[in-house]
């Protein structure tokens, strides 16, 4: 106990260099814990992009690619699946619900997705959370649109705002569906998923836009169909991009998947969202692991800095050691004193680092949420965090053993003689 006090007073006497050492460790701990926090939350948020859907069905392609365009709205489908295939699969005895997804149009950089109102009741994200309307309701009219939270915020749209969809998915499009503007009927609450950046319209509405198109070009003159005329037409699409399936039981998943993969009428594939997500994450995971490794090294750098500071101080503290020896301190006291010093510095660094991390998190939370749609909850450190912190302290003790051993040897040689 007395040694602890001595170590503390000795450090206090060298408070400037001790403070710098603590700060270096604290910053590295903040970085490590921060990276860990973002890493876990990003992974959780990623894994929670789609939940409650048992199968994603689309034309044959890679499973990651199907996931990318049907859920993340990244890239484009190379081909469509036929509407009658959709109807056949939806009628499968084990299928409880089926949601069509049709992509290909955009509005000022945001993807437009044609679907049915079932989407709002069956699509789940996070821990089985349903989509919530912040304002208005699902589309009802042919030209109604439901906006994701980011779309509404960034384009500053309210209920009733009119928007003209563009053909194709580029940020700037030259071919607009100006003749058939949509009206905002609902705005979704934030989900932290790509849903936030999507404009949802009815499948029929999307079909109405293209009903008079021929060979991927808008109709001219008399061939044009006005918005009102379109309402009278049979607006069944010929094809869709993909479909999401909910089954009556989880157990049926593999059987249905097999049935779809052997679908006789069209080459189709069905993927399990969880499996595809994991496959995709294993691609992204390299960057995430690299980040972790980098922050581990930053922590090591902090500890090496501490080692340097203590080692550098040893020579000028030979007098201190000799005095302690002369008043009865044994070499093992000298050893413990220096070990306590290293441990104390690391502990102070870890605690300050924790405090800094939570402060940063508290300050950055709203910014991260609004910029990246990633909500990072402020939760107490988990088991893994404590393990990491414990490992840092352990490493500090191991490294502190180096100057402690040197001081021990030195005090054996110097004994009571004061050398400076």
């Amino acid at each position, binding site marked *: 106990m*007395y040694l602890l006090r*001595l170590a503390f*007073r*000795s450090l*206090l*006497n060298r408070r400037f260099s001790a403070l710098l050492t603590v700060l270096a460790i604290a910053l590295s701990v903040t970085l490590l814990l921060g990276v860990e926090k973002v890493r876990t939350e990003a992974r959780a948020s990623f894994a929670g992009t789609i939940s409650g859907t048992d199968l994603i069905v689309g034309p044959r392609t890679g499973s990651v690619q199907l996931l990318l365009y049907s859920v993340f709205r990244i890239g484009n489908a190379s081909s469509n699946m036929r509407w009658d295939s959709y109807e056949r699969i939806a009628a499968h005895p084990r299928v409880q619900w089926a949601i069509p997804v049709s992509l290909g149009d955009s509005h000022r950089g945001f993807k437009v997705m044609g679907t049915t109102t079932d989407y709002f009741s069956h699509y789940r994200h996070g821990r089985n959370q349903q989509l919530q309307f912040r304002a208005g309701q699902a589309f009802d009219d042919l030209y109604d649109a439901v906006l994701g939270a980011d779309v509404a915020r960034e384009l500053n749209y309210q209920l009733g705002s009119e928007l003209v969809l563009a053909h194709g998915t580029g940020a700037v499009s030259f071919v607009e569906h100006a003749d058939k503007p949509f009206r905002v009927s609902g705005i979704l609450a934030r989900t932290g998923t790509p849903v936030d950046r999507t404009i949802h319209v009815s499948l029929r509405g999307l079909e109405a836009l293209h009903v008079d198109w021929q060979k991927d070009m808008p109709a001219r003159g008399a061939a044009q169909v006005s918005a009102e005329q379109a309402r009278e037409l049979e607006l069944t699409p010929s094809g869709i991009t993909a479909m999401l399936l909910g089954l009556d039981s989880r157990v049926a998943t593999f059987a249905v998947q097999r049935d779809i993969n052997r679908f006789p009428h069209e080459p189709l594939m069905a993927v399990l969202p969880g499996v595809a997500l994991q496959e995709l994450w294993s691609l992204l995971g390299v960057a995430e692991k690299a980040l972790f490794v980098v922050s581990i090294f930053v922590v090591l750098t902090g500890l090496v800095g501490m080692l340097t500071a203590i080692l550098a101080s040893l020579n000028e503290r030979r*007098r*201190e050691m*000799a*005095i*302690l*020896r*002369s*008043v*009865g*301190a*044994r*070499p*093992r*006291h000298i050893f413990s004193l220096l070990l306590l010093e290293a441990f104390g510095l690391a502990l102070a660094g870890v605690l300050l680092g924790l405090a800094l991390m939570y402060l940063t998190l508290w300050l950055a939370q709203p910014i991260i949420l609004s910029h990246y749609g990633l909500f990072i909850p402020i939760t107490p450190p988990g088991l893994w965090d404590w393990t990491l912190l414990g490992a840092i302290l352990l490493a500090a003790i191991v490294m502190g053993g180096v100057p402690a051993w040197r001081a021990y040897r030195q005090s*054996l040689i110097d*004994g*009571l*003689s*004061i050398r400076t």
Partner: protein
Amino acid sequence: MSTPVIQLENVTFAWPGRPVLLDIARFTLQPGERVFLKGPSGSGKTTLLGLLGGVQLPDTGTIRLLGEDLAGMSGSRRDRFRADHSGYIFQMFNLLPYLSVLENITLPCHFSALRQQRARQRHGSVEAAARHLLAHLGLDRPELLRQPVTELSIGQQQRVAAARALIGNPELVIADEPTSALDADTREAFLELLFIECQAAGSSLLFVSHDAALESLFDRSLSLRELNRAASSAGVI
């Protein structure tokens, strides 16, 4: 006859790979005795103090402190023995700069249960013992106690060091050139105080110095060069 505090017999010592540095046939220090040991720097003085502190062991011969053979003890036992029975005063900068005056004085009591016990028996508490010594050494002005030790004058620092060596009444006080940084007036005053307090504590005093002017004040004076048979053969190192 009571047991001598220090008893050296046929002690030789050499640092590894170096010629014999110390060769002392006989040296004793009786209880309560004040001995002046004259030794210029390089005469093996520091090494002798290391041997007496049990930090080094002699190559041949025996060193007994209070009748106990140091070589027969384990390393940590020797350390404890030193802490229990001897106090040290060095040339200068004796104090730990990060402790207060009182904390510096009570330092030995944290490493020696025996000295802590003795201080308590005499004065009630370790702190009371320290205050008592300070008062006797003329350092009891309250503002002095609040100052960082680095702001004390060298004379004051040496008196604090003396108090530290004396707390808990060790049988032996070893002073290694404690007055060499002091001017002539303070030197004698310091010695006088040291003598009185050593007597009060019942401690023997081994005073090592090259300053021959002081030797007349002691019970006995010895020259390390005469004592050390190795010095004449190997010359001054």
